[in-house]
Every structure is written in C-alpha cells, then in structure tokens.
C-alpha cells in the first residue's frame, strides 16, 4: 500500500475542502478503501477520515419514511427497530451482506460507493487491461472468467457487477441520496458503464454523501430481500431480489409491487417490467413465474467460447427470474 497522509476532518466543510484536492479520498469504514489500496487499485495521496464527524450517524424512522445518516453502520441499520418494521428488505439486505465484523465498520455512505468485485479489476499487477481502472485499456473479463459478471446493463467496455445488497433494496423503494446541497434519486446515483465504466456514481470530487432517505410505503413495509449465493453466508449474491408488495383488501390482487435485482447487473437494477406486468393481477405462482421472466429481458450472458464447460455467467439468466418469483411469492405469503 502506497503511503498517504491522514487527515481527521473536524467538520463537513473541512472534509469537503480536503476531499476536493486531487488524489484525496474520503475514509469511512475503510472496508473498500483499504482493501483496494492494498490491491494497488486506489492510490490516494491523502485520506480524509470522516468517521468522527458529529450528527452523520443518525437513523430515524417516522410516518414519512426513513432517514439514514451516511455514517450509520451497516449493523446499526440492520438492527434498527424502525427499519426492521417499516423496511424489512433493507434490514435483510444488510444482515445478509459481508460479515458481522465488516458490518460493524462499514457505513451506509461507503456502502453505496463500494466498487465491483471483478477479480481483474482488483488485480492490476496481473491484468493491466481493465477499462474501469484504466480507461481505454480493454476488458479482461470479456472472454475471461466471468461467472460472477453482469447480464444486465453491460456494455462493450465493461461487464462488472455492482455487488451492493443495500443498494438493490434502496432502488426498489425509491430512496434518495443526499449530497449536502443537492439530492439524487438512488436509481440515478448509479451510472451504467457505457463508454465510461470508470465513472460509477453521480457524485463530484469534494461532494460527500450526508444521508439516505427512503419514503414509507405499504410495499416497503411488506418487503423482503432474497439472496442466493455460492455459500450461505459471507458471500456476494449470485442473484438477489428486493421485493415489496401491497395487496388489495381481497388479499390476492396485487395493488403495488416493487422489484429490484442485485448481483446480476452493472448497477442496482429495478425490474419495472415485472412490476407493471403484475400490478392488478392475482397473486398466484404461475402468473408470478411468467412475469418474473421479464426481469431478464435484454439480458446478455458472456459465455466463454474456448474451453469445455466454461459457461460463464449464463446461469444467471435462468437464476434471476427464479429468485424474483420466489421472493414475490414469499412476501405475498403464497410460498
């Protein structure tokens, strides 16, 4: 890890000023930043520690919705009584993410800013080609080992998955990211790779995430997060779904539905086609399974042409709709 200077910010303005300098980086829980600094992926010259700023760690839930300060820890949000009651999918996404130790360290703001787990991205010494890390250098994953890569929102330049669990839950329930002066819908906060995969978030140097808010809704209150992965815990999603549902008084007609996918797309992925297809329909397995196939409309897998049995991430095209259907049926009380 390259040496850097360390600055403990005493106020938000302090932090903004220090972070606006070239090669400066904000430090919150450090679980992404220090990891990638050791990989040689990020090389800050100065690190601006914001963890001691006051008032950024609050979590409040009322009739309007949830306010989550940028320094609230993943473990605190997951176990907050208001979040558990009014936004179960958010709590479930968090306690199923990373490990207890990491959740005690990592913050909500840092969580949104976490980088992809693409193994090529993380290993500059062995794989110089990575458009996200070094724009224009190519992509080692296209044609490489890409079992964990994205099937949705990909481009010719990059197929890396956004690995965030919390982000998927936030996208499902129309959360807002607050950057001090301005606020951005969480869906717009995450950028598609396009020709500029190095640019992942709608945030400018010197801007700091101060809070995340989530509006209350009946669908958010009746929600769940289903995460399917290679091992049962301490693993990123192969495919996951944040789902919320509101039923008509008859208990079987879908009034409102929210569906977002994690682990399969280059950004947290709202599946509006599934929502639209099921709104007004009866909640029953066959209808839900058929509609869930719309979650992977336009999906592209990256098979590896050479070599036997290297089917890349093709399995995700089959897996993702099943995860969505299972989550909808579960939260609707049908399965």
């Amino acid at each position: 890890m390259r040496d850097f200077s360390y600055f403990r910010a005493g106020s938000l303005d302090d932090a903004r000023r220090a972070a606006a300098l070239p090669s400066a980086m904000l430090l919150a829980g450090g679980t992404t930043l220090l990891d990638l600094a050791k990989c040689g992926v990020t090389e800050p010259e100065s690190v601006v520690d914001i963890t001691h700023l006051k008032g950024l760690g609050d979590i409040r839930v009322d009739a309007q919705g949830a306010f989550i300060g940028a320094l609230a820890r993943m473990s605190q949000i997951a176990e907050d009584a208001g979040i558990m009651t009014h936004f179960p999918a958010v709590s479930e996404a968090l306690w199923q993410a990373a490990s207890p130790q990491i959740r005690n360290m990592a913050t909500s703001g840092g969580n949104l800013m976490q980088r992809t787990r693409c193994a090529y991205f993380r290993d500059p010494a062995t794989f110089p080609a990575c458009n996200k890390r070094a724009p224009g250098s190519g992509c080692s994953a296209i044609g490489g080992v890409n079992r964990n890569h994205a099937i949705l929102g990909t481009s010719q330049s990059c197929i890396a998955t956004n690995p965030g669990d919390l982000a998927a839950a936030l996208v499902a329930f129309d959360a807002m990211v607050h950057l001090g002066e301005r606020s951005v819908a969480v869906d717009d906060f995450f950028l598609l790779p396009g020709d500029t995969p190095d640019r992942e978030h709608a945030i400018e140097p010197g801007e700091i995430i101060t809070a995340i808010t989530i509006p209350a809704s009946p669908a958010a209150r009746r929600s769940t997060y289903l995460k399917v992965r290679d091992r049962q815990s301490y693993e990123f999603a192969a495919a996951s779904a944040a789902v919320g549902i509101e039923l008509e008084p008859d208990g079987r007609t879908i009034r409102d539905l929210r569906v977002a996918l994690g682990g399969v797309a280059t950004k947290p992925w709202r599946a509006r086609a599934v929502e639209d297809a099921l709104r007004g329909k009866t909640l029953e397995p066959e209808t839900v399974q058929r509609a869930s196939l719309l979650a992977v409309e336009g999906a592209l897998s990256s098979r590896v042409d050479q070599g036997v049995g290297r089917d890349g991430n093709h399995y995700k095209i089959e897996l993702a709709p099943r995860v969505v259907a299972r989550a909808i049926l579960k939260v609707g009380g049908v399965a």
Partner: protein
Amino acid sequence: MTNRTIVHLEINGRMQALDIEPRVTLLDALREHLGLTGTKKGCDHGQCGACTVHVDGERVLACLTLAAQAEGQAVTTIEGLAGSNGELHPVQAAFLEYDAFQCGYCTPGQIMSAVACIREGHAGSDDEIREYMSGNLCRCGAYPHIVAAVRQAAEDLTAHKQAAE
C-alpha cells in the same frame, strides 16, 4: 522526510503511544510495533476474520482499520481476554474443552468474534451461531466444534449473568 503520526491507543487496558506511518493498519501496529502477535494476519483483505479484535467493545477487522483511525479508542486483543490472574475467559475455556481448533491459526479471531457474537445476543441457536460467526473462516474445517464451543460458552455466560442478577 517520512510521513509519520503519533497515535494513542488503549490496548488491553494500557495506554500506548505509537509513532507510525499513517498507512499502518491496526493489525500491523499490534503485530509489528507492539509485539502482540496473537492477532493473526490471514488474508489482509477482510475476507477471513483472523485479525478480529474489539474496538470500543465491538468486533472489527484490524486489517481494514487504520491505527490512526482508532486514535483514543480502546482495543482488546486475544492477549487481553483472560483475567489478570491468568484465568481463561469462558469462551477460551470452551474452545479448549470442545477442541474447537486444529492448527489454531484462526482461533484468536474465532474467539474474539465469539465473545462479541454472544454479547450481541446472536448465539441463540446453532443456525444463528453459524450465520453470525460466518466472518471467521477456518481452513482446518473445525466448524462443528467451534459451533459447539460457542453454544456452550453462550449458555455458561447467560447462566453466569442470571446468577449475578
């Protein structure tokens, strides 16, 4: 000129001042600068839990914490767990009783994690123990004995707490 910083940490109840580069992690500070090698370095990337310590009573990964970030905070390592008379912490005793290790490399991290896991109230069933101990990998695969030891220690500690009340 090298870039250095003075960091004050309360390690296992004793204040210590360290003159280190800002990039030094809490893990390297403990092992290389303070000679406290009980805390292990497995992956150095947050993926194994071998470096688990408590900062202000909460379990965290020392490999992804800058020592400078912990300025003024209380750090407990495996060396600080036993009583001053050398009496083992109930979790340490349970790991011995249940033979919850093979090579022992992951053990300090497992024990520090287990102490916190029980304190957090996440040791209510074997499934809950597995979920809330998942941040600690064991390459020897001693998991069944680790779960048994944590369950036993949780029961002992709860009984102890109830007796005290």
